[in-house]
């Protein structure tokens, strides 16, 4: 009879520990994964946000999160900036490109600007990379009825970073 009681006791204790274990694992996984994703996202986004507010990009009047597309166009042919920023690719997607495939997007050149979808500032050929993006206001000077004004639209600033592989 004592053996039977002991067996019952053991089963019950194991059952209890399994339940507690499940409970703890569920809490740990749900919180840590969400927190890790959030921290990683915030970190990369703040890097892009700093970029949008840098002198090379910011708009007249230093509006927050605003990129001057005329300045961005001037950077296209400037190779010095490829070493200046820690990104392997830097580009701006205008709102007209949001629902288009990459092959359908019109790349901006001095000839077709501003009637284009994508301002590719520079791109290095790298295989192992991760890209992050942030919404920005993309502004340019526009002339209408002999009056100069700033026209802004929503765009995405996309930055690609090289992933450094750890050698074992």
């Amino acid at each position, binding site marked *: *009879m*004592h053996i*039977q*009681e002991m067996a*019952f*006791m053991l089963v*019950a204790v194991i*059952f*209890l520990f399994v*339940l*507690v274990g*499940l*409970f703890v694992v*569920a*809490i740990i996984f*749900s919180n840590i994964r*969400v927190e890790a994703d*959030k921290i990683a*996202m*915030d970190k990369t*986004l*703040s890097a892009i*946000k700093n970029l949008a507010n840098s002198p090379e990009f910011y708009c007249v009047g230093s*509006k*927050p*999160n*605003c990129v001057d597309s005329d300045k961005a166009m001037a950077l296209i042919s400037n190779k010095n900036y490829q070493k200046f920023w820690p990104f392997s690719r830097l580009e701006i997607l205008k*709102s007209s490109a*949001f*629902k288009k495939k990459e092959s359908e997007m019109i790349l901006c050149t001095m000839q077709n600007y501003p009637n284009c979808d994508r301002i590719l500032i520079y791109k290095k050929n790298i295989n192992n990379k991760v890209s992050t993006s*942030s*919404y*920005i*206001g993309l*502004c340019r000077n*526009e002339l*209408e*009825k002999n*009056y100069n*004004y*700033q*026209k*802004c*639209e*929503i*765009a995405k600033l996309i930055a690609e970073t090289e992933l450094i592989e750890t050698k074992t």
Partner: protein
Amino acid sequence: MIKNHKAQSETVGFVLIIIIVAVIMMIFLWFLFIGKPADIYTSADMSDLLTASMLYTTNCSTTFLPEYKSGRDLVRECYTNSGELCLDGRTVCQALNETIEETIRKVLDVSDVSVYKAFRVNISYYEKNSPNPKEEFFSTGQGSFANCTARYGGYDPINQPPGYIEIRLQVCKSRKEI
């Protein structure tokens, strides 16, 4: 026989306690995963979208063309003078509503079949140093916030002495991943 009966009663009692603990755990787990509403995450991405849509040049001008208002100008004017008209006859608040439609709904592609199934924008005026809104003067949105896997929120403050205007964006992420 009495000893045997006592042991049996103790075992039954113990099993009962285990069952009660298990049921409590199950209820706890149910609340943890299913029962509670989706968490609201403050998202830098949503705040950036909101800031960018406030920079957006609208097609509303209240003075002369081409002095078009930005989203931010329309928010201010919708608060201070909601009856003011754009040159095309719309009120500034109607123009603001259309601007939000134009920017947030289209950019996020809000619909029943996409990743984002609903969004809501609330704009309120706050007194300085007060955590509670004095007045919510504008709200718009689309879709239902039922069964969201997550809710993402962003905000953008505008200085409006003696207080400030706060624009809040809340987005409902659907269960469907596309």
